[in-house]
C-alpha cells in the first residue's frame, strides 16, 4: 500500500496531507497538522477525548481512517476559540471549574458546542445525553454540566 494525498478544510483553512489510507484521522491532526489540542484517551471510541466536528457532526477522530475524511470539513478545538478570544463554552468552563487535568476538556468542549448548535436550550436530560460519549475522571461532571448550562445563558442547573 502507498500513501495517498488527502485535502481537508481544517478550522476554515485548506490543508493537505499524505496519509496511509487506514491511518487514524487523530494522528494526522496531531502529527501532520500539528494541532495537538485534540487528545487521545482510550483510542477505542469510549472516552471522547479525540472528539472533533466532521462536516458539522461530532465524531471520534481515533475511529476515522484518514482516507474517509478526504474532502471533508473539520473543526478541532483550535477552531472553537483561542486564548485571546475564548468561546462562550470555554469561558464558562473556566468560570465554573469545568476543567481539571484537562485531557477530556477539548473533547467536552467540542461535544458541548455540537449539542448547543443543535439544541441551544438543552434540558438536563439532553445535556447528559449530549455529553454521554465523553468521560471525565476528575470533575465528577457536575461542574461541566453547570458550565454548559451557563454557556447557554441561564445557569439553570445549579447544584
Amino acid at each position, binding site marked *: 500500500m502507498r500513501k495517498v494525498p488527502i485535502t481537508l478544510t481544517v478550522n476554515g483553512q485548506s490543508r493537505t496531507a499524505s496519509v496511509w489510507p487506514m491511518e487514524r484521522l487523530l494522528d494526522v491532526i496531531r502529527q501532520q497538522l500539528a494541532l495537538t489540542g485534540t487528545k487521545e484517551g482510550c483510542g477505542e471510541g469510549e472516552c471522547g477525548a479525540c472528539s472533533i466536528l466532521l462536516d458539522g457532526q461530532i465524531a471520534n477522530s481515533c*475511529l476515522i*481512517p484518514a482516507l474517509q475524511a478526504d474532502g471533508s470539513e473539520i473543526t478541532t478545538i483550535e477552531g472553537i476559540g483561542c486564548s485571546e478570544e475564548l468561546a462562550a463554552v470555554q469561558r464558562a468552563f473556566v468560570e465554573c471549574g469545568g476543567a481539571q487535568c484537562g485531557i477530556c476538556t477539548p473533547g467536552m468542549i467540542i461535544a458541548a458546542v455540537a449539542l448547543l448548535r443543535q439544541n441551544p436550550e438543552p434540558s438536563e436530560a439532553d445535556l447528559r445525553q449530549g455529553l454521554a460519549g465523553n468521560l471525565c475522571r476528575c470533575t465528577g461532571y457536575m461542574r461541566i454540566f453547570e458550565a454548559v448550562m451557563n454557556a447557554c445563558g441561564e445557569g439553570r442547573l445549579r447544584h
Partner: protein
Amino acid sequence: MRAYIPGYELCAPKTLTEALERMAAEPGRWRPFAGGTDLMVLLEAGKLHHSCFLSIWRLRELRGIMIASDSVMLGCLTTFTDVLNDEVLRREFPLLAAAAAQTGGVATQNRGTLGGNIVNASPAADTPPALLVYDAEVELLSSRGSRWLSYHEFHTGYKTTRLGADELLARIRLPRNTAGFLHYYRKVGTRNAQAISKVCFAGVRSQPSGEVRIALGSVAPVPLRCWRTEAAIREGGDGLAALAAEITPIDDVRSTAAYRLRVSQNLLKAFLHS
C-alpha cells in the same frame, strides 16, 4: 498491540457498481468498510485480521430512508442518528429508535450504521433484537443480482452469516404492521451510554390479536428471535421455561450465564406486564 497501519488497504470506489465489481472480481479479498466504529477498534487493538477494505461511506446509493405505504426501506448506511431523526421510525419502530439512542454516545451514533451493526454480527449488538421483532428483511446485493432474506435467517452462528464473499448488505426493509402494538425495549449494561449489553431485550405484542414477538441479544451466539417462547406465551403460558430452554447464555467478561438467564426471565415478565 497496535496494528501495522501501512499493511492495510482501504480504497474508496466512486459508485456502488464499481464497489460490487471489485468484490466480484476478487471474491473474499475486499470487505466493505462503513462508519468504522467497530473495525477501527479492532484495528487499534491489533485484532483486525482482514486487511483489504472498500470504503462505502460516501456511496449515496446506500443512504436514505424511504417510506412506502406498507414498508420502510433503509439504506445500509443509515446511521443511528438518522434513525433518531426520522419521525416515522420513532413513531412506528420505537424499539429501533431506543436501540439507536442507547448505542454509544452521539459521536458513535453519527458514524455507526445499521448495516454495519448487522454485518459485524456481534450477538451483543443493540439494534438486531429490534430488527428481529419488526420482521426485518435484508437485501444482499452483488454484481450477480439482488436477493432478499428474512433477517432472522441471516445469522448462522457466532459471527457467521449468509453473506456471500461478493455480496454487500445493501438495504433493510421493515413492514409497517405494528400499529396498535405495545413495544418494549430494555438494554441491561454497566452504564447507560457507551456500554456493551449484558442482556438486550426487545418485544412487541398486540392485546387484541394475542400476537407476540420477542428477541434477545447477548444470550446466544446470534441475536436470537425466540420463536418457542412466543409460542408458549400464545398458548397461555408465562414463557419462562421456554425462554430458559431457548437461550444459551455464557460466562464472559461482561457477565455470567446465570445472571443473564435470570435477567432475561425478569425482562420477559416485565414485558408481559408492561
